């Protein structure tokens, strides 16, 4: 019995080792193939779009140089022709700031128009080169355009948040709300959270988690602000109602043409 078992084991042991090594070699082979193919695809794509990239940079650089030259020429020409003075003539005394005179404005507009033209030409050349290379699937470059869009969204959102925060801070301070800073910060973060959610959504990061988290955060901030304003501005509302009531009473009771005695002691700003 023992002999039989030993014989069976001796026959059975080498087989798994052989298949393992055989399979291992197959996996490495597949991996190597996959890597080679991937490298080939990427290199092929890069080679295909390289002329497009070069064309992009060449077009932008050339247009910047042309723009600079045109800007300098325009500035000199308009200064010689006394463009600012001619434009101001007939409009009374118009004082142009040195950094914002019509000459400078025209020169700058020309320069940036050239830059924009270069970007458009470059992007068009790049697009044509990339379109020929899209036989190979690659999602990296389209994603870069999303990143650019997300950066623009973030920039705009930050600007809007800052503007609104300042507007609300100044307005609330002038209305003498004690929680002006809190209100301003609340609105600022509200806009920033909204911007962050939009950016993540644009980048396709997070999926439903972002939407859910944004909903919770946004709702939380709105609720907090509503409670704070509702509870904090009771005095303001009552004061406003009282003053409105007093004003309407005064209007109904006041004579239509009050005499001016020069002894009115109330404070009048206008």
């Amino acid at each position, binding site marked *: 019995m023992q002999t039989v078992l030993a014989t069976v084991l001796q026959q059975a042991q080498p087989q798994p080792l052989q298949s393992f090594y055989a399979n291992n070699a197959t996996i490495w082979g597949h991996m190597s193939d996959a890597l080679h193919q991937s490298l080939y695809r990427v290199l092929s794509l890069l080679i295909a779009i390289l002329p497009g990239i070069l064309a992009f940079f060449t077009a932008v650089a050339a247009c910047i140089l042309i723009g600079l030259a045109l800007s300098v020429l325009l500035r000199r020409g308009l200064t010689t022709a006394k463009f600012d003075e001619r434009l101001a003539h007939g409009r009374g*005394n118009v004082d142009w700031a040195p950094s914002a005179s019509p000459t400078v404005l025209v020169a700058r507009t020309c320069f940036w128009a050239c830059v924009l033209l270069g970007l458009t030409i470059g992007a068009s050349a790049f697009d044509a080169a990339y379109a020929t290379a899209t036989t190979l699937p690659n999602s990296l470059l389209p994603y870069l355009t999303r990143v650019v869009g997300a950066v623009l969204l973030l920039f705009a959102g930050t600007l809007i948040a800052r503007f609104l925060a300042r507007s609300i801070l100044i307005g609330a301070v*002038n*209305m003498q709300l004690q929680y002006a*800073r809190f209100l301003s910060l609340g609105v600022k973060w509200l806009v920033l959270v909204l911007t962050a959610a939009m950016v993540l959504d644009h980048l396709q990061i997070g999926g439903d988690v972002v939407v859910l988290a944004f909903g919770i955060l946004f709702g939380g901030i709105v609720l907090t602000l509503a409670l704070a304003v509702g509870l904090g501005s009771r005095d303001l509302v009552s004061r406003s109602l009282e003053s409105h009531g007093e004003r309407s009473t005064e209007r109904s009771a006041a004579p239509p043409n009050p005499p*001016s005695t020069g002894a009115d*002691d109330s404070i*009048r*700003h206008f």
Partner: protein
Amino acid sequence: MQKPVGDCRKPYRLSIDFPSMVKVTMATANPISDITSASAPPGAGLLVLLAAMPPEQLESLLANLAASFPEEDLLVATPDENAADSHPDLRIVPAPATKSSWELTAADFVNAYHLAGKNEARAILMLGPESSSLAPSALRDLANAVIATSTDLAIPRYDLPPHAALVNSAILYPLSRALFASRARFPMAIDLGLSLRMVERLASAAQRFAPPSQGEVLLWPINEAAVAGFTIDEFDVGPRVLPQPEGPGLNTIFPMVTGSLFADIDAKAAFWQRPRLLPPAHYSTPPAPSTDPARDIAPMLEAFRLAYDNLQDIWRLVLPPKSLLGLKRLSVANAAAFHLSESLWARIVFDFLLAYRLRTINRGHLLGALIPLYLAWVASHINITASGTSPARHIEAVAAAFEADKPYLVSRWRWPDRFNP
């Protein structure tokens, strides 16, 4: 007074010219009838353009006008359609109604110019709302100045209560005096005597704005007259009820008024940067009132302190460290000792004007951030007048501080990036 310049001439001019002081004392003189007997042009001598006002005020004002001017020389333009029926003795024509209820806007000057041209008027008297409270002699003074003398802009000097027209006293008058070398006490007066060329100038200034917005745009006649080299005269017109803006409060009106003046100053920088001599004062500063009841400045101080706690980040973008230090000291001062010095106030206004020009921050934000500082000035002004100083004397001191600090404004206007402690 500066001599009139330019191609446009008045239709004709009397050979006599009244000195300014005489003009004030000759309140009851009525040279219009003399002028018309000498040579009578076909049109009306004087066009009086009235603002919209309640019927009873209009009745009173028309009676004053009828008593003050000969009927054949007077043409009244009013938005009230029923006025002609109630006063058949006066020549009354319809005038377009404007939106404004408390100040003269660009649309009013455009209307005045069109009406003057249509009716061949030789001079225009514009009367704002509640002008029925003006004495007849005041109407005659303003009208006579532009019709019988070489004055292009006759501007009234109202006798107002001590704490009325405070925005005018704090900002408009000092800026106008320091930059445009005019002693006219009320640059935003709503009753004006205008020569033909003056109204033409104002109408052309108004034409820069689109017609729908003309009803909301303010013009600054003193600045326009100063730039054009026209003659400005001021006349003591006694007490007057000044209409107050209804609806929007200080937080809305203040940025509108100061923003308009700042924009006008920005546009006329080439003029005011040159040094000019201020004409001698014609009016003496009245003595302090015998009884000046104490007013509660606590709400204004509270507004300033709240702003100091919250708006420092914004003020820091506009004001230099020295001004911020002054404000810090003010924020901890008690109500009795609260005093915003004239030099600090002048510096604050100039720095805000510079920030307006440079667009350091959004202009709406900038002017909104000036409101608490203005309230601090009002509180300080009330404190000073309560201590026995005449309000007029304090306002003159403020205006003098603006004049003294003008080199700072000119310097920073030209070189904004220069070191500023």
